[in-house]
Structure formats: structure tokens, C-alpha cells
């Protein structure tokens, strides 16, 4: 948590300037009664108009100076708080970008988003406020007490005794409210989560008419937030009446004690009056103090939440023996006895998987739903690390490659085609920043999407993604293929990325991909696609069921035969069998 506040250090000078300006303002404020007294005593009472004019001008000048100081303070305070907010947002975003998927599982997206926006705003506002009024309250408080001590230290002892109690109480409020506001922010995450789910699943919710169901769910989250906010704020607001009451009772005590002392002749009435006056001033500061407490407890909660993100330990990092000169040269891939389980679960998703693919070859991966195909994929670009065994590229463990170099050599097309808000051009170019116009168009052509793009309202400049035009599932898939091939990767990984493509388009696509001469992994359900590959790997429940060419598998693997039959029917099956045996052996 303190780390979060430590980012303020950068702005020491500006902070000092802001605080100095606040002090200057405060000084003017304190000087004014004195000048006023001068005007009355030396000017008006003595009938000296010049003195009145003189000090009147001085007072006016000071007022203007205070104004200038105040305005300047605005600039400094805004600068510090906004830059501070900027810094934290940047740090958090950078940190999140270094997260592994295991780290991501700890923070739901909705929560990360609130932390990066709402929590930072909270901190930012507190900093701004602090620079402008924070000094006032304690100074006025201390000033009041010190002045009373000067007037009559015996009477002022009442205040001195009351003060630690007040401070202790404030500390308690700060602690309690701090942890309560922590809950408020967490509930806000909850509201955000339901909202996000609803936006993402809007079509489904509409289709199944679950508006009322979802509204009830949202209202529950919203009600949670309300209840928590209400009880946190109420704790804070208890502080003013309590503090006020304590101060007031203190004043009564001063009066009572004072009257006895006056009776004894130990002190003057004027002294009692003066101390009572100071006590009233101190009470009037209490409102500001409760305001400060509120801001601080919210800031504390937010700082904690941001701190958690910043303090997260990244568990997937480059190991010490990373060879920074290493880069993927050929693209030979070998999996050696690879086993894998997701970090948060117990069951092994992959068990003892071994195979190898030579540079330029194509490997098709088949298997039933949930057999571990996608999991197998993720290990090559190190989205996850193996639990056991090794993944080797060109004979070297993937862990010895610098992560960035490794991933730059790989083009991944995921199962769900995710596009970002931006133009078609930007989305394809996303794969390679320095891609030229020709490269992008070529990639689009190879991905069989060029013609479609040319029919869009603004061709390559048409916006897609969350705020873009409607693209069909197949069109999105092809754009995301173009995004992968524009990098001219050494290794291309297609995760069932052609499922929404019709077979003709798919065939053209696969032909076009051949000229990229990269090692290609294709997860597919379609035998027709698998038949084109150099090797087929058949997974079943996380194990390698069979591997070989289409013909070999037809001979050796009953499961493969079953799959073929499921797609072609008995009659066509014979046809496929015969056809492939004659043509590819």
C-alpha cells in the first residue's frame, strides 16, 4: 500500500510549492484580524484617515496576493494529482501486461478495470484535496491549542487532555472506515462484473428473455453496494457529532472550572472568554477533519487494492539461463513427455505427450471435445509452462528463449476470433507493427478475406471490433488468420480456426498458407483438413492415442476410423479410404 503513495515522491518540488502556497494563504488569513485591529485602534479611534487608507490598501494588496497564491496552488495541486493518477494507471497497466494467466485468474477483469479507473480517481482526488486543505485543519487545531496554552495553561489543559482522545478516536474511525470502504470497492467490482457479463452476453439474454432474471441479479449486486456504502458512510458521519459533543463538553468544563478559578481570583474573566473562543474555533475545524478522514479512508482502501495488483508476483518469467541471443531459426518442434495441469486444478490435462514436427511440416491435431488440444497449443508460446517434460524448438527448451523473441516467431490464431476496436488495416497490422500496405493486403488475400474487405464500406479503413461493423464468424476467423500470417511466422498455430469457414474457402486458405513454409499446427475437427497434413496427432483424454499419416491412422487407429466414419458415412468412407490410399502413398 505504501508503495502506491510512494509514487508521489516524483512530485516533491511541486508538492512543496503547493503546500507553501497554502501556508501563504493561511498567513494572510491570520494577518487580517491584526490589520483590522490596527485600522480600528490607530486609525478610527485616533481619527487618522491616512492610517485607515494605508492599512486598507495593505489589506487589499494582501488579499490579492492570497488570491494569486490560491490560483497558483490550483495549478500545482492539479498537476501533482493528475500526474500521480497518470503514473499509477500506467504502472498498473504495465504490471497487468506482465501478468501470466495464473495471475489473471486471481483478478477478474471487472475488478482490474475498476482498480485502474475508479480506485485511481479516488486516490487522485484525495491528493488534490490534501494539497489544498489538509494543512489547514491540523494547523488551525494546533494553533488554537497553543494560543490557549499561552492565555492560561491551566484552563487549556482541558483541551490538551481532550485532544489525544479525539486523535485516538479519529484513528479508530479511519481504520474501521478504511476496511469498510475496502468492501465498498469490492462490491463495486461485483456491480461491474454483472454489468460486463450482461454486455457480453446481451444477445443470449435477449434470446432467452432473461431480462428480469438478470435485473434481479444486478439489483442484488447493486443493493449490496448500496448497503455497504451506506454503512461505511454512516460510520464516518458519526465522527462529527461525537467530536463536536466532546469539544462542547470540554467548553462546559472550561466554564465550570473557569468560574471557580475566577471566584478564587486565580484568573481573569477575559482569559476564560478567550479560551472558550479558541475552543469554538477548534470545533469549526472538525467538519474539515471528518471530510479528510473520509477521503483518507477511501484512499487507503483504494491504495490497498492497487497495491495488491502491483505486488502480485509474476509466476511466468524468463528464467536465469535465458539465452538472449537465441531466436527461432528453423521451427523444428518437439514435445518430450509433456504433462500439464492448469495451475489451479488437480487433474492432468495432458499426460506424457511426445511428438515432433520438422520445420515446414504441417501437423493436424484431432481429438474429442475436451481432450487437451488447446492446452497442448498453449505450451509452445509459453502461455503456460509445462508441469512435466519439455517443449523444444530447434532442440532447445522454449524456456531458454527470451519470451518476446519466442512469441514473435509464432503466429497464433485462437479458437475465438478476437478483434480489437480499430480498422481492418489496424487489426491485421496488429500482428506486425512495421507491416507495409502490401504485406497487409497480401496477408488478407492469403487468408481469403481480401474480397470481403473490399466490399466493406471503407475497405481496409472500416472499423471492426467492439465498435465496428457486423462481421460473420467466418469473416472474423479469417481476419484473425491474416493477423497471424502477416508476421510471416516460423511457427503457425491454428486452433480450430477454420470451423466457421466453408470447405471451399478453407481449401483455398490452406493452399495459400503452404507458401509460407512455416511449421504449422492445425487443430481441426475435419478429416478433410487433417488429410492434407503431413502428420496427424490424435489425442484422447490428454494422451496421444495415435500419430502418423492419414493412411497409417486408417490402418492402426480404430478411433480415427470412427471419426472418419462419423464424417463421411459408410459409403463415402470407402471412397475416402480408397481415394487417399491411391493418391498419397
Amino acid at each position, binding site marked *: 500500500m505504501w508503495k502506491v503513495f510512494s509514487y508521489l515522491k516524483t512530485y516533491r518540488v511541486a508538492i512543496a510549492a503547493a503546500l507553501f502556497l497554502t501556508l501563504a494563504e493561511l498567513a494572510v488569513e491570520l494577518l487580517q484580524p491584526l490589520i483590522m485591529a490596527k485600522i480600528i485602534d490607530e486609525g478610527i479611534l485616533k481619527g487618522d484617515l491616512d492610517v485607515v487608507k494605508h492599512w486598507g490598501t495593505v489589506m487589499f494588496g494582501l488579499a490579492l496576493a492570497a488570491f494569486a497564491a490560491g490560483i497558483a496552488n490550483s495549478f500545482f495541486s492539479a498537476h501533482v494529482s493528475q500526474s500521480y493518477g497518470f503514473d499509477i494507471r500506467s504502472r498498473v497497466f504495465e504490471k497487468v501486461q506482465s501478468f501470466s494467466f495464473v495471475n489473471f485468474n486471481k483478478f477478474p477483469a471487472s475488478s482490474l478495470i475498476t482498480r485502474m479507473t475508479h480506485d485511481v480517481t479516488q486516490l487522485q482526488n484525495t491528493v488534490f484535496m490534501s494539497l489544498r486543505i489538509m494543512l489547514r485543519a491540523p494547523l488551525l487545531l494546533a494553533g488554537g491549542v497553543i494560543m490557549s496554552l499561552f492565555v492560561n495553561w491551566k484552563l487549556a489543559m482541558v483541551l490538551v487532555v481532550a485532544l489525544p482522545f479525539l486523535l485516538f478516536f479519529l484513528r479508530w474511525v479511519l481504520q474501521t472506515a478504511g476496511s469498510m470502504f475496502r468492501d465498498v470497492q469490492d462490491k463495486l467490482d461485483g456491480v461491474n462484473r454483472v454489468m460486463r*457479463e450482461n454486455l457480453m452476453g446481451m444477445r443470449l439474454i435477449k434470446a432467452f428473455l*432473461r431480462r428480469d432474471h438478470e435485473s434481479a441479479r444486478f439489483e442484488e449486486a447493486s443493493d449490496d453496494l448500496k448497503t455497504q456504502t451506506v454503512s461505511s458512510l454512516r460510520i464516518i458521519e458519526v465522527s462529527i457529532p461525537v467530536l463536536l459533543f466532546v469539544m462542547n463538553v470540554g467548553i462546559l468544563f472550561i466554564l465550570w472550572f473557569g468560574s471557580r478559578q475566577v471566584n478564587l481570583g486565580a484568573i481573569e474573566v477575559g482569559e476564560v472568554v478567550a479560551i472558550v473562543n479558541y475552543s469554538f474555533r477548534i470545533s469549526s475545524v472538525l467538519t474539515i477533519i471528518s471530510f479528510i478522514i473520509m477521503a483518507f479512508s477511501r484512499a487507503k482502501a483504494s491504495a490497498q487494492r492497487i497495491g495488491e495488483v502491483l505486488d502480485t508476483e509474476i509466476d511466468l518469467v524468463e528464467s536465469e539461463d535465458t539465452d538472449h541471443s537465441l531466436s527461432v531459426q528453423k521451427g523444428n518442434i518437439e514435445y518430450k513427455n509433456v504433462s500439464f495441469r492448469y495451475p489451479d486444478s488437480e487433474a492432468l490435462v495432458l499426460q506424457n505427450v511426445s511428438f515432433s514436427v520438422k520445420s515446414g511440416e504441417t501437423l493436424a491435431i484431432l481429438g474429442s*471435445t475436451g481432450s487437451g488440444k488447446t492446452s497442448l497449443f498453449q505450451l509452445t508460446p509459453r502461455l503456460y509452462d509445462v508441469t512435466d517434460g519439455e517443449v523444444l524448438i530447434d532442440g532447445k527448451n522454449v524456456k531458454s528463449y527470451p519470451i518476446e523473441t519466442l512469441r514473435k516467431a509464432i503466429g497464433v490464431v485462437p479458437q475465438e476470433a478476437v478483434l480489437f476496436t480499430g480498422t481492418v488495416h489496424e487489426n491485421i497490422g496488429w500482428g506486425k507493427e512495421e507491416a507495409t500496405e502490401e504485406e497487409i493486403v497480401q496477408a488478407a488475400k492469403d487468408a481469403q478475406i481480401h474480397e470481403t474487405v473490399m466490399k466493406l464500406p471503407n475497405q481496409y479503413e472500416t472499423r471492426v471490433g467492439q465498435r465496428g461493423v457486423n462481421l460473420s464468424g467466418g469473416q472474423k476467423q479469417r481476419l484473425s488468420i491474416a493477423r497471424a500470417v502477416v508476421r510471416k511466422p516460423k511457427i503457425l498455430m491454428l486452433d480450430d480456426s477454420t470451423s466457421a469457414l466453408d470447405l*471451399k474457402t478453407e481449401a483455398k486458405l490452406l493452399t495459400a498458407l503452404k507458401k509460407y513454409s512455416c511449421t504449422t499446427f492445425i487443430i481441426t475437427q475435419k*478429416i478433410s483438413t487433417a488429410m492434407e497434413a503431413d502428420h496427424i496427432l490424435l489425442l484422447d483424454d490428454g494422451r496421444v492415442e495415435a500419430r502418423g499419416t492419414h493412411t497409417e491412422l486408417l490402418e492402426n487407429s480404430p478411433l480415427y476410423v470412427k*471419426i472418419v466414419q462419423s464424417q463421411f458415412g459408410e459409403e463415402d468412407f470407402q471412397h475416402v479410404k480408397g481415394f487417399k490410399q491411391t493418391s498419397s502413398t
Partner: protein
Amino acid sequence: MSKGSNRPHPHNHLFGEKVKPKNWSSTVKRIGSYFSDQKWLLSLVLLMVIISSALSLLGPFLIGVAIDTYIVGENAEGLTKLLIGLIFVFIGQSVSIWLQNYWMIGIAQQTVYRMRNDLFKQFHRLPISFFDKRQHGELMSRVTNDIENVSSTLNSSFIQVFSSILTLVGTVGVMIYLSPMLTLISLSIIPLMFFGLKWITKRTGARFKEQQRNLGEINGYVEEITSGQRIVKSFSQEKRVIEEFMIKNERLKESGYWAQTFSGFIPKLMNVLNNGSFALIAGVGGVLALNGKVSIGVIVIFVEYSRQFTRPLNDLANQFNTLLSAVAGAERVFEILDESKEERDEEEAIELSAVKGKVEFRDVAFSYEGDDQTVAGLNFSVKEGETVALVGPTGAGKTTVVNLLSRFYDADKGQILLDGHDIKNVKRNSLRSHMAFVLQDSFLFEGSIFENIRYGRLGATDEEVIEAAKLANAHSFIQKLPKGYNAILNHEGSGISQGQKQLLSIARAILADPSLLILDEATSSIDTITEVKIQEALQRLMTGRTSFVIAHRLNTIQQADQILVLHDGGILEKGTHEELLNNKGFYHSLYHSQLKQEA
């Protein structure tokens, strides 16, 4: 160091964008309308404010009395009585302050709660096309950042404003009583204040709006990047997204900087005006006193009162600040509430109680906003209970047909009839209640498997859910999960595969038991052996009800009563599998390409 002084003036380009400060008094009124059902509680708050204000004046007054009569007069007994009386005054003061805050917090949060729920409900009333143009995170920002802005203002401002006005009125009354002339001088700062506030508001209003908008942009970007994290990582593009983020972050900082700086002027302006009036009273008062027009005592009291007078003004001014940013937040919420709803034309729309499932498309044409014609001249009819398969290349308009039938979008031209009723005259909810969907992107909610399947029919028993899962072939994998049907799926979908998600979606549709079944690529990520098994279940499900099936694997739709081959938004061929094969047309070549790749 601050870059404040030598910074170029970016507000010119900020204003160039389409951020208009709206009439903010109407926005304030609208926020106020949310209070309406809590009037009585609100008047209690006001009552408490009046009481606490009165008591906070009474306390010091009584203490003055105590000093004058008892301490100076040395009457210890009377003093004790008065002090006891004072204790009650102070208790009353504290209690009334506590109560007003206690209630106000409740009122404010209830208001915010309603606003949040209104916004949420509004999202569900908006047409799908609304969401095509917006980022999720940007919309989410309105619920969190914007509404929370309103929230923090409402908590404190209302009481503050009211008690300030109260004090103001009281003080001015006493001042007029003491010296009308000096009062006039004190009040002379009010026009100046008004002018100053106007100047500042003009500058800050738009900037606060801008700030909230930029915050929304950031929210949108973060949401999108977090959702697409897999891509960012696989492509090793972390540096690039950080750079893009910085640009948006910078923009937010810039707008926030100016909003905060300008609004920071307000209290300072108040201060200088206060000090000015202070000096003015002293100066003019001094001259008047020299001329014997007023007594010195009056000046002294007046100075004290003018302090009293300016303090509430100061408080008001400080509130103004937060008020401005709250208004900016509220405006963005109302923007959404004012979007036109999906169901605006449905006053005479009917409910369909039972649906047989006869569907007819008559010369239907449609295009997505800003897009070329997506489909045109769609003519076909489906008898009740028939299965229709839609095939064709990607982008041919298959999903669009489904979108139109379910009224996610309304056709631009032509008619779609269900059992002879134009569906434009049927309530959307009624229409969709007769349909069940397996959509292309199988969306699962955070929650248990039970909950996710039960989404198809909320009243279904556990046994029915399990039965549906068995039919969809999802049962076996569910059983293998650590907690079976109670396993919690998190939204990012860790633990289950895309194909398994589809199985759950199918189970959901099976459970819904509709008159019309719509399967859009329902089995695209499922392996073919499982698919064959599900096919049997689906076949059973489809008998007797009208079904629309979109599929690429043609073997899954051979049984269809009717196959529509779509191409470039029109119907190219239609007929049964055999008919189309005999036609030797597009379908024929499509079908055979499945077997014979150009090897």
C-alpha cells in the same frame, strides 16, 4: 515541476471534439426527480438541519449569557443549572446532526441505487444495434465511474447547500438590522461571485464531461485488452498496448488537469472576494465611523458577521466543484437513458400464446448500419414442424436471417410472418419466448454448470437439467469435473473447452423446449463423434418443431426438409438434399468439395 505555466493550451483542441456542456440546471433537476419518492424523509432531514443550525446558534449564545451573568456575576449555583441545560442543547445538536447525516446517506444511496438500476434496465431495452457501436468497458464506466461521481456528491452536498443557505439568510437578516449600508457593501461581492462562477463553470463544465469521457475510453480500452489478453500475449504485443494506453492515459490526464485547475479557482475566487469585502467594510466602515455615521462596535460586529456570511458562501463554492463533476457524470448516464428503446413501436403489438411454427419470409431485405446490403430479396416459407438448413459461404447472410427472425434487428424491407402474423406486430418478448437458440458464440455466465444450463428454463428441476445435459452429451464431461454440476465456471472459461461450452449451450436449448429451435453453428467446435451422438438428440428435439439450422458440415443437415443455399445475401438454391445434388449447382459442388479436396 509544474508544467502549468509553460504548457501549450490544449483546450482548443479539446473543445474541437464533440463535447457539449448541456444545460446543466436541467440535469440537476433530473437528479432531483429521483428524490421525489423520498420527500418525507427529505423533509425530516431539512427539519434536522434547521434544528441543528438553531442549536448551534443557541449554544454559543447561552455560553455568552453564562459568562456575562454567572462568571462575571459570580453566581455558581445558577451556573451549574445553566451548564446542565447546555449539555442538553449540545446533545440535541449532536443528535440532530447525526440524524440528518444518517438519513441523508440513506436517501442519497437509494437515489444512486435507482439510477444504477435504471441504467441497467435501459441497457436491456436497447436494441442490439446500439451495442454494435459501443465498447463494453465504455458503457461499464457509466455505471461505475459516472454514477459513483454522482454518489459522492449527493452524500454531502445536499445538507451542505441547505445549511449554507439557511445560515446565509439568517446572517443577512441580522446584518441588515445592524446597518443596511454596510450590508449593501458586503453583498456587493455577490454579483462578482456570480460572474466569476459563470466564467469558471463555462470552462469546467465541458472539461469535466471530457474527463469523464476520457475515463470511459480508458475503461473501454482496458476492458478490451483484458478480454483479448490471450492475443496480446501470443503476439507479444505488450509494449504496443502499453503505448496505446499511454496515449489515452495522457489525454485523460490533460482533461483532468484543466478540469481540476479551473474548478480549483472557485474557492480561491471566493476567498479573494471575502477578503475584499472584509477590506471594504473596514475601509468604508472606518470612513463612516470617522464621520460618526456608525459606531465602532457596529463595525467590529459587522466584520465578524461578514465572516459568518462568507463561510457558507465558501462552503457552497467548494460544493460547486464536486457538483460540476457529478453533473458531468449524470449527463452521461442520462444520455443512455435517453437513447431510443427497442420496443418503441409496439403499442399495438400482440402476444402470441401458442405458436405452430409456420414461417414465411416475403421479399425481405436488410443491411447493418453503414454496411452494404447484407441480405435482399429473401423469399421462402417453412411449414410447421419443418427443419430448414441454411448453408452458404461465410458472410452470405445466414446469421442475419436468424437475427431478423428473432428481431434482434428489424428488416428494412419486406415481411416476416410467423403463423401468418407479421412479426413486427408481435411483442419481442412474446416472439422470443417461443424460440430457443444455440448461438454462434456460446456464452457462459460466471456460475455453476447447473445455473448455466438452467438458464434455458429457470424453473427446471435438477433432474431435468441433468436429463438435458445427457441428451446434449455433456453429462460425461460434467461428471469428471471436481464438483460436477456444481462446478463454478468463471467467465474467462478456464477449465472447460470451447467444444464443451457448445455442449452446455445445446443442453440449455434442449431444456428450453421451444416451438422454434434455432441452431447457429451449434456444433462447430465439437468433434464429429460427439456430434453424431448429439445429432440423434437434436433430431429428436427437432421433430415436430420448426427448426433453423446453420451448419458448415453438410452431412449434419442432410435430413433437413429444406435447404436454403445463401450466396451474397440472396437465395441461390433451395430444395432437399437430393434435389440440390441432382441440380448439380452450388450445393452440389459444395458438398463434393467436402470429399474431394483439389488434391
